[in-house]
């Protein structure tokens, strides 16, 4: 008789697994482009809407001259994050394809529309995106190439995600040739897929590692900057060759002093440094509902002095996406906890009934609360006295870090800013990257400033 129980148990496990698969896992599995069944759904369901957190329609299906057309009221503004619906789809249009093409309208109305030979109405996707913040970021970036990510560090909600250059998602099919052949990679979502050297924004990580290895005496760090220094056979310059004079750790961050940082890094433990980067989710897949690149941190215990020096100021082989940099900043802003970034708040049927809901989820817990407090204090100085004064406001409390990341031997650089603004417990983290923007403080910080403003308006 025990044998009967063994087998019944085995099958209950199997059935439990199948139920779990259908109820949970299958939702992600079936959106794969190799699953051709979703094309069949298009014949019977009107694709649902994509809606912003402030209730604006970002994408909808309308009938024009008896033909269904996908309409994007904000045109280019949400091009990458919302995506296009032709040619294999992209962005949320791709990732939420199944939800948009599934009708959870009540059975009766489905049968009625079925009897009338009409299509059922697909479910609507409610995003975390806020049109006001998206607009602020989009306009602030103007005609420059780059990306802006704004998120809530406490929940992981993405408020805005802009990538430029952009395109008109409604015309993706018509302009397909041009979109793909363009040299400036129009279709690439720079916010999640673009990999850039982090430049001085990485000094936050180097400073943290230094603090961890000199727990009791990091305050005693002193270095006299003359504008340039030599590490081995490597010449390191501060931005614009400025001599910062004698600086401690706080001032080194505030002024973004390269020479101080490469000396600080000289005796750092490379493998501990690498494991901190790992904790900050470098080299791991960011679980977000979009195509995203892995940020890279390649230094390890066998790397040489040159690589260590380069890495400490975010030059070397380290590469990061604007989203990842926003997550690093979020960890600092959220007492050391990284929340899983997400874009879809809810999926609702046509009658407003909630079908699915995203719950905020902790991803990682790499920093202690006291480390965060110390870093916040240092990063506040960047805004009040240092390189990031363009992001200062008397209305709310900002802290952050600028960066100017050289990307070629001609010393052309990308402009970075990562920062957080707080007021009465409300927080927003913004990560800005401007390609070939030269100075983070001059070019990227004002863009973040505009997003902060829009948030606290």
């Amino acid at each position, binding site marked *: *008789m*025990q*044998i*009967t129980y*063994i*087998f*019944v148990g*085995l*099958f209950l*496990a*199997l*059935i439990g*697994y*199948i*139920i779990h*698969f*259908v109820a949970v*896992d*299958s*939702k992600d*599995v*079936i959106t*794969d482009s*190799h*699953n*051709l*069944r*979703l094309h*069949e759904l298009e014949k*019977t369901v009107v694709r649902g809407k994509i809606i912003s957190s402030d209730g604006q329609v970002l994408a909808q299906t309308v009938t024009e001259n008896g033909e269904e057309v996908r309409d994007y009221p904000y045109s280019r503004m949400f091009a990458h994050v919302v995506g296009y619906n032709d040619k294999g789809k992209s962005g949320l249009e791709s990732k939420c394809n199944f939800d948009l093409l599934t009708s959870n309208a009540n059975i009766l109305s489905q*049968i009625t529309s*079925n*009897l009338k030979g009409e299509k059922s109405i697909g479910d609507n996707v409610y995003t975390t995106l806020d049109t006001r913040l998206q607009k602020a970021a989009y306009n602030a970036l103007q005609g420059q190439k780059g990306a802006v990510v704004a998120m809530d560090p406490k929940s992981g909600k993405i408020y805005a995600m802009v990538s430029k250059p952009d395109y008109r998602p409604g015309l993706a099919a018509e302009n397909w040739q041009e979109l793909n052949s363009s040299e400036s990679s129009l279709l690439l979502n720079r916010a999640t897929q673009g990999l850039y050297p982090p430049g001085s924004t990485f000094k936050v990580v180097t400073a943290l590692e230094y603090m961890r290895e000199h727990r009791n005496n990091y305050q005693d760090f002193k270095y006299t900057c003359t504008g340039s220094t030599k590490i081995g056979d490597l010449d390191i310059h501060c931005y614009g060759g400025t001599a910062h004079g004698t600086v401690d750790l706080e001032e080194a961050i505030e002024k973004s002093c390269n020479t101080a940082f490469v000396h600080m890094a000289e005796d750092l433990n490379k493998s501990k440094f690498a494991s901190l980067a790992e904790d900050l989710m470098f080299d791991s897949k960011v679980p977000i509902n979009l195509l995203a690149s892995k940020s890279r941190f390649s230094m390890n215990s066998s790397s040489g002095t040159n690589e260590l020096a380069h890495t400490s100021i975010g030059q070397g082989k380290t590469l990061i996406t604007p989203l990842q940099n926003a997550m690093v900043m979020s960890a600092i802003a959220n007492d050391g906890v990284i929340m899983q970034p997400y874009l879809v708040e809810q999926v609702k049927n046509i009658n407003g009934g909630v079908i699915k809901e995203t719950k905020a989820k902790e991803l990682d817990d790499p920093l202690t609360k006291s480390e965060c407090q110390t870093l916040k204090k240092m990063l506040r100085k960047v805004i009040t006295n240092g390189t990031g004064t363009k992001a200062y406001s008397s209305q709310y409390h900002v802290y952050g870090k600028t960066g100017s990341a050289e990307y070629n031997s001609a010393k052309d650089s990308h402009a970075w800013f990562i920062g957080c603004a707080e007021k009465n417990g409300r927080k927003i983290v913004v990560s800005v990257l401007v390609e070939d923007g030269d100075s983070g403080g001059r070019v990227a910080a004002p863009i973040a400033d505009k997003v902060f403003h829009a948030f606290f308006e």
Partner: protein
Amino acid sequence: MIQIITVIAKYLILIMCLVYTFSCYTMFRPKNKERQRDLLDNQVIYMFVFLFLCNAVLFLRSFDLKILIFFAAQVVFFEILMILFPKIYKRCSRLLINNSCFLLGIGFVVLTRLSFELALKQFAIVAASVFITSLIPLMMHKITFWDKLGWLYAVAGFVLLASVFVIGVQKNGSYNWVSIGPLAFQPSEFVKIIFVFFSAALLSKAKEFKDLVKITVIAALYVLVLVVEKDLGGALLYFVIYLMMLYAATAKPLYLLGGLAAGSLAAVIANLLFSHVQVRVAVWRDPFSMIEGRGAQVCQSLFAIGTGGWFGLGLGMGRPFDIPVRESDFIFSVISEEFGVIFGICLIFVLISCFILFMDISTRSRKLFNKLLCLGFGVCFLFQVFLSIGGVTKFIPSTGVTIPLVSYGGTSVVSTLIIFNVIQGLHMLADSEEEEHERIKAEEEAREQGRNPIPEKRRGAKTQKEKES
């Protein structure tokens, strides 16, 4: 219009399947024979309504007269089987007949949807083999020395299994097919029957530990041959059958645990040694990274099951042709896609109810040989279902096993029909043994109480008559 009919039919089909499945389990409860007969009659109705709905949809989608004619042929065939078999074998299990018809019926519907030619071929094989295998219960009754041929089974089975090394052909990456003239079949499908007979015969006679060692070594050789043939599903199946029979024969949990430990160790070693095992495991772990290569089968299967969802897309509304090996190994995915996962789970429950029936007969049998035979076949039947459905849903690595009676495949269907008829034979034997036992007991009781035994006997005869009617 056809859309609406398909959708409505989809729900009706599901309801029929649900009530049928439910009745499989309520069946065991009533002791009242008449109530039980009503339930069995109802089951037949559910089954025919189910078949009618499916075939109606299939016909309306194609307006192909062939489908109607084929449906009529199925009805006639099932009716004959369900009326004639209980007429000839008065004590047969009607539940087992109903279940086999229901499973065959699902198979026919799905095959008709996939390919009419395949369905027809399957039907011909089923009809012919039902006719021939129906003689088995009679043989079980007339021949009494089944349990005395242990060593003969051992040798015959082994030779047949190893024959693929001499006259084998490769198919689907495994070296387990034999073709003689126009016939191609998998010896392991038949050998598993001989294997169960061999294990039951020898284990029921084993007296010392030495005997058990001998039998276990032979069983291990069978498994080894299958591993060398790269038939991993087969190897696992034989292993589990033997382990369960050994446990049932000895009632020593130590053997069960030791066997499981040895089996796990063997699996780990196999994974280290054989590249084809490594590939299967890698595909199981992450099929999506190999979606355009070896992972395609499992991915497409998961797409089908996931897109079908709870209620399915409706008969004829899915894309079963995207699924590889759809008519045999992956038939569960095809069923789930169009009939829905709830239907798929019902199907699993119907298959489990067959197993419970097997185990029930095993408990009722008095001879150890018969007990073990029933148990062995029960495990053989159900574990195969587990391997098949577990594989296509990515619960376990896929091993390319069919669902008995539902999947297309001559060898598989013939061997399952043989098993079902052996079980029918054992069921009848158990029944008559039980009655014999009751009669003797009643007589003894009557004698003890010093009463006239005749009225008791009559009462006994009456119940027997009731059972027969």
